């Protein structure tokens, strides 16, 4: 389970409505309306992005009265389906999905099996992307793609659809670059 103890708060006096915060919010918790940023409370995971990107220093983190608790119990989904999804994504169920929150891939996979269709939805079910917000984005996209979800590039630059892995490297490239262990390194990922 991931506890979110803070919440982003906008100082509307300072906010110029530039929208930079909305572009870096991993859960679309920020909308710019009437030239002011607004934070949707239950969607804010209190990552550092909006606070640190704001050129006016108009956003700060404040403690929540009660922490928000996120988490998906992977045992609630069909375990065969879960393992199959992870296998397709070339991700071990027990490897880290998000090191910041100590969340494992199996939890993200369970979120997908429970209906998450975007990286944002996985984040709001599991609590991931509340830290660096970066590495778990990649794992989320890989799980969604493996499940057959057609990822649709959001407007702006919240994320870019690009998920190349070792398993996308062609035979031609493997032969072209023999010193890079492009075939051999597949074996060092945990088999399951």
């Amino acid at each position, binding site marked *: 389970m*991931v*506890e979110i*103890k*803070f919440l982003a708060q906008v100082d509307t006096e300072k906010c110029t409505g530039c929208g930079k915060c909305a*572009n*870096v919010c991993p859960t679309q918790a920020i909308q710019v309306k009437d030239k002011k940023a607004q934070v949707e409370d239950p969607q804010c995971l*209190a*990552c*550092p*992005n909006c606070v*640190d*990107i704001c050129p006016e220093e108009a956003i700060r*983190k404040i403690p929540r009265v009660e922490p928000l608790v996120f988490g998906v119990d992977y045992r609630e989904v069909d375990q065969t389906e879960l393992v199959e999804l992870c296998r397709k994504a070339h991700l*071990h169920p*027990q*490897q*880290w999905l998000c*090191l*910041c*929150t*100590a969340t494992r891939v199996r939890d993200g996979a369970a979120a997908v099996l429970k209906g998450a269709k975007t990286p944002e939805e996985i984040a709001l079910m599991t609590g991931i992307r*509340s*830290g*660096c*917000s*970066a*590495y778990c*984005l*990649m*794992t989320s*996209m*890989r799980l969604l793609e493996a499940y057959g979800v057609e990822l649709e590039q959001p407007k702006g*630059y919240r*994320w*870019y659809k*690009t*998920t*190349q*892995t*070792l398993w*996308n*490297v062609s035979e031609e*490239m493997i032969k072209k*670059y023999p*010193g*890079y*262990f*492009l075939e*051999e*390194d*597949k*074996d*060092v*990922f*945990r*088999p399951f």
Partner: protein
Amino acid sequence: MLNKASPSVIRDSRYGPPVGKRAADLPGMVGLGVAAIFPDIPKALYVEGGDVSIIRKATESALENVKIDMIRPQHTVNILTSQYGFMIMGGYAYAEMVKTIKEVIERKTGCSNIRLRVATGFRIREPEEIIRHYKLDEFFKGKASPALFLEKGVPIETELGTMYGLAKIYDADWIIHAHHGELRELDMHRMMNRAIKPFSMSYARMETRSIHHMNFGPRSSNIIPKLIFESPFVQSKFTFGCFLQTSPQGIIGVDADNDMYAIDRRLMVLAFKSYGKIRELYNEIRECIAVMDGPGEPRYMIGGGTTFGNLTEAELDLFDLDNIPVSLGYGLYQYPPHQPKLKSVNPSIKALVMNHFWLGVPQLELASHIPTILVGMDMADLVASDSMNHKFIDYVVTAGNLETAMTFARRLANTDKVIAFDGAFGAITCSEPLAEYFIERAPVVSERVDNQLMPGWLRQRGIDPATVNV
């Protein structure tokens, strides 16, 4: 051989606590000269506190043979930098190299529209702090700017499909790659394309950094910077690279070239010579207390001229490409059969004292594997609110000050061997008993590296040891 320890200065940052007492000031801590134990490690021309005009002269000299006539007076140029260069010995040498590059380009080409880009890891405000601290915006006439992993991207078509650089990095006619040769994270780069790694890290969007870090293996990941660097888009803008050359002694020179693979080869040989022995010396440690006492995140904090990451993974020879690390803290890799078992964190570190460090990377593996003591409530408050380490605070204890933290650590670890990662180059800040142990083990290490390990490292990278003056 044993001198007063001289830690690096710590720059003020919102990501760290106020600077307090330093580990070097504790009774019994000494500075063990690197040259005294390994006289063949390349000597420094600059160490912290020295005259930076030496760096200026070395940069000017290195740039003399670099082709820059593609830059015309009406063009725009971005000098690309990374935050870590500004952490090496206070950052003044790196800042001086960058300033000199600008002045040489202006003087030789007549181009005046030269901008500075400062890239970083996850500390979003850090480039601003750097630009302010070194007065770079004034120097670049208002044209110094951060380049952040979550800002607007620019597509880069590669042999492996589209990847994304940072738009601010590439928004000029030409780019200059201003970097350094400090070893930093050997577990990632393995001295394969080390010189161009920033093209898939510092200069890349977070998705591309993730492809490098997570979607490829411990050796194969190093093809990603190559694919990006060799893309028509990057090649259409690339001019040359200019690097601070380092060893555990300090800055040993400046290297510049239009051919990045030539720089890479020189860096590789230099890394083996410079860092091979210090890494092996750390591999000799059987028990110690490590003290974090500098700027940056623990993994990248310098002790004895090399990063803490090289102690946490010292028990595996990461220059050896046949070795496959299972580290990274991400749990990505299996324990390969017939390979040495590498723990998440080197078990010779019996306790960790966090006197000063900066937030900025996920590092739960430290606290969850080593008994860890935070120093002071300012540090504890920072850690408790760190969104990149939700559970870190649950694994650690807090001591009121450095002295009590050390007393507790000694009782816990039952050792008097202490090593501090305090940014020092040229000397290892450590307790006298550990210094004596290092002095005893250094000849064994030196022999092992020269006669057993170095030839293998070179051969694996296609270099005949007989052709290299090591």
